[in-house]
């Protein structure tokens, strides 16, 4: 494919906040389709490789900024990033092209896998394999939790909010939205702006 998106080499002042002129919608779709089809084991490194390194559609600072917004919003990082980057490049059409591209390969695959599992899921060797897969997946989620804790917590007291959330959902069986609203508001108030300023933390 022709690399027509790399026209950002013009020496524009403040290039960091200017998108390269008119990336074609089709190219946005295809680029996210490739990410959607190849990003085994987590999309973030693949997104960075494609958007920042290969196509120069956004720079590294914008990438990190968009990722932190994606992380704070409901929705998966992968699809939120697609929406944010698509919007940045070509507005609403760009967002639609990007999210369709990144979702399509995995959706088709899981459609087929679901049918296959429904028919053959009872075979002894499949049940045995899936028992191992599920156990491995638990380890994978735990490693995500550890990684996120290292990266995005801003103080020891945050562990209290983590504990409150877990106890509310797992022990007290309070629904996720209620927990989210109550503990979320408490945590946001705890990190109120004056405290943030005093700690000298700037975004």
């Amino acid at each position, binding site marked *: 494919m022709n690399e027509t998106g790399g026209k950002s080499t013009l020496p524009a002042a403040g290039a960091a906040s200017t998108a390269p002129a008119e990336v074609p919608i089709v190219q946005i779709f295809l680029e996210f389709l490739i990410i959607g089809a190849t990003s085994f084991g987590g999309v973030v490194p693949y997104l960075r490789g494609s958007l920042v390194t290969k196509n120069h559609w956004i720079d590294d600072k914008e990438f990190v900024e968009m990722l932190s917004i994606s992380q704070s919003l409901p929705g998966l990082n992968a699809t939120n990033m697609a929406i944010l980057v698509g919007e940045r490049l070509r507005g609403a059409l760009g967002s639609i092209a990007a999210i369709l591209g990144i979702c399509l390969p995995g959706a088709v695959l899981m459609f087929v896998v679901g049918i296959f599992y429904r028919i053959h899921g009872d075979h002894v060797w499949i049940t045995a394999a899936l028992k191992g897969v599920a156990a491995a997946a*638990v380890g994978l989620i735990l*490693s995500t939790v550890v990684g996120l804790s290292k990266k995005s917590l801003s103080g020891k007291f945050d562990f209290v909010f983590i504990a409150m959330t877990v106890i509310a959902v797992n022990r007290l069986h309070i629904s996720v939205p209620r927990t989210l609203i109550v503990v979320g508001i408490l945590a946001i108030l705890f990190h109120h702006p004056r405290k943030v300023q005093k700690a000298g933390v700037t975004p």
Partner: protein
Amino acid sequence: MNQIPALARVFSYLSLLTVGGGMAAFPEMKILTVDAHHWLDFKQLIHLYSVGQMAPGPNMMMIVSIGQWAGGALGAIVVLIAFFGPTALLAFAVAKGWRKLEKWPWRTSIQQGLAPVSIGLLLAGCFTMAKGAITGTETAAISVAVLLILLQYKINPALLVVSGAVIGVLSFMPK
């Protein structure tokens, strides 16, 4: 019975719970898809979720399988739109507004405050899943091994999940 309206309702609701990651919605997903609507059983939900971790792209594509089981091809499409539509619209709205809020002091407070809550939700989802997935010493050992390897080495997690399948066949096949 026509499950399409229920699929749309359940998955658009779950969509808004995925703060921090898809796992955050897992406890509620179990209650709604398994206990309330009986689209699948708990073991199947765990299996589909785990298999989904090996697929490329956004890591909750297993919802498509649930949609397909409950409502065929139409069910799969409805679930996709219901699960990704609401958060996509929200992200789109925020994309336009967030930059303007750069000077708003509460912006950092919201990000810092939501971080521990989203981590807690992921952990709660993980515990819900572990209740079904960790059934003995062997499965616990696999989980801990995957966790330690991922913390220590830069290795593609999908490879470890595939290794889990191999270890599963080797250790859990009835003799």
